[in-house]
């Protein structure tokens, strides 16, 4: 378990009554929750339960049909679904990171590892080449990638390395919240353990908040303070991670928890 932040009175992110329909198809329905600074929230549920749709709405990648996504800023809480498009883009770009399951989608595969990090730094306003390279090296080290690989293309990296590179590229501009869609799926377990360890250290070291979408309950227990359980677009149960996993109340959560094979 990652460490819980001391003071969590003022939420960083508040989702309210959020719904998304794709035509007549329901993505997610009437979802509300808040995330405090330094808090890690897990959204669990089987494929097609609307977890990724919810995450994409928060990330500004999908426009919600209804509801609000409030983000804390110096000017108070701003509703990303109602504010000016340029402001929304700016908040998303500077305050959030987005990590996808498929690292190839989150990285530019034809530019070097250092380039992937440097590009983000330049987008954040940094111009000095030496400085950019120095920071890229520091970040590679932080996510446990050999700095000697800085000039290599991500295509030559293993899946686990690509995923850690994607995380580094998202963190260089010091976002307040990371949105992660199944970051550990598709990795073998030893690689997963390393990624989880890197994430744990980053979260407690940077006071970073995280919304983690996963179907892996063991990963959820290890990383998340609180869990939300989704089924067919609805939020069916929420609570402390150990409450949800050790004392599930709803039939669907009981099914989810009891279906996991324990090695």
């Amino acid at each position, binding site marked *: 378990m990652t*460490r*819980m932040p001391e003071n*969590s009175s003022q939420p960083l992110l508040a989702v309210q009554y959020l719904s998304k329909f794709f035509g007549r198809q329901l993505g997610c329905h009437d979802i509300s929750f808040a995330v*405090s600074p330094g808090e890690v929230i897990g959204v669990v549920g089987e494929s097609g339960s609307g977890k990724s749709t919810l995450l994409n709405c928060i990330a500004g990648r999908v426009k919600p049909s209804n509801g609000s996504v409030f983000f804390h800023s110096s000017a108070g809480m701003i509703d990303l679904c109602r504010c000016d498009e340029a402001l929304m883009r700016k908040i998303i770009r500077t305050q959030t990171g987005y990590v996808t399951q498929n690292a190839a989608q989150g990285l530019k595969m034809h530019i070097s590892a250092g380039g992937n990090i440097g590009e983000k730094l330049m987008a954040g306003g940094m111009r000095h080449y030496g400085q950019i390279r120095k920071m890229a090296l520091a970040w590679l080290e932080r996510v446990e990638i050999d700095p000697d690989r800085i000039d290599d293309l991500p295509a030559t990296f293993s899946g686990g390395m690509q995923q850690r590179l994607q995380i580094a590229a998202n963190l260089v501009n010091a976002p307040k919240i990371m949105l992660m869609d199944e970051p550990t799926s598709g990795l073998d377990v030893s690689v997963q*353990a*390393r990624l*989880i*360890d890197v994430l*744990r250290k980053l979260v407690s070291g940077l006071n970073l908040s995280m919304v983690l979408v996963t179907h892996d309950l063991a990963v959820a227990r*290890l990383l998340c*303070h*609180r869990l939300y359980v989704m089924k067919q677009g609805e939020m069916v149960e929420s*609570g*402390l991670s*150990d*409450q949800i996993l*050790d*004392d599930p*109340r*709803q*039939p669907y959560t*009981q*099914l989810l928890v*009891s279906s996991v094979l324990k090695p």
Partner: protein
Amino acid sequence: MAPRWILKLENIEKDFVFHLQQGTRIVVFDRFSHLFFPGRATILTGPSGTGKSTLLRMIYGTYKTGGGHMWARRRGRPVDIAAAEPAMIYTLRRDTIGYVSQFLRVVPRVSALDTVIEPLLARNMELESARKKGRALLERLNIPSNMWHLSATTFSGGEQQRINLARGFIAPFPILLLDEPTASLDLKNRRIVIDLIKEALADNTCVIGVFHDPKDHRDFADHTIDLAHMLNQEVIQP
């Protein structure tokens, strides 16, 4: 003047409904009340399945309480665990309620020493002082120093149990919950754990424990609650 309680259970209720098993409902606690005091050890007894571990997990906030109140005094002020928000449960776990379970939940790649000192770091203790304290406790619990920097994943059951105990005793808690902490230990290590418990009691900790072997608690137990005699458990088939 009557001593001041540290934990007050007031008409607590707990049931489990198994939706996947035809909705079978098991009532474990039905308006159970009890007071616990600082510096006193209360031992929960009764055959397995009577709710000993359930009670510990309810106090720790892992199991939701169905009804009633569970007041824990935190820095002099009562907090109702049964109604507390997640952030408050985390706060209680950081500075008020400690819990040693039967099994260590091992995190891969985290060293035994770092596993042990986590509760100190959560209280913002500086890393080197925390490690110094951790090393001393691991030494006392007879974990060889060449294992301290290894992940506990490959440790034996008894070694993992001692890592778990070190983690539970490294930081003082006003309330300490112990769920069979001596179960997989040899005699020598049991005695060390019993000494640790006695020291915590002398330090005014309220100890609530479940012990497999009555010999382990006979020289410090102040009070026992026999859950079997409460006859409060019923299984309801719909």
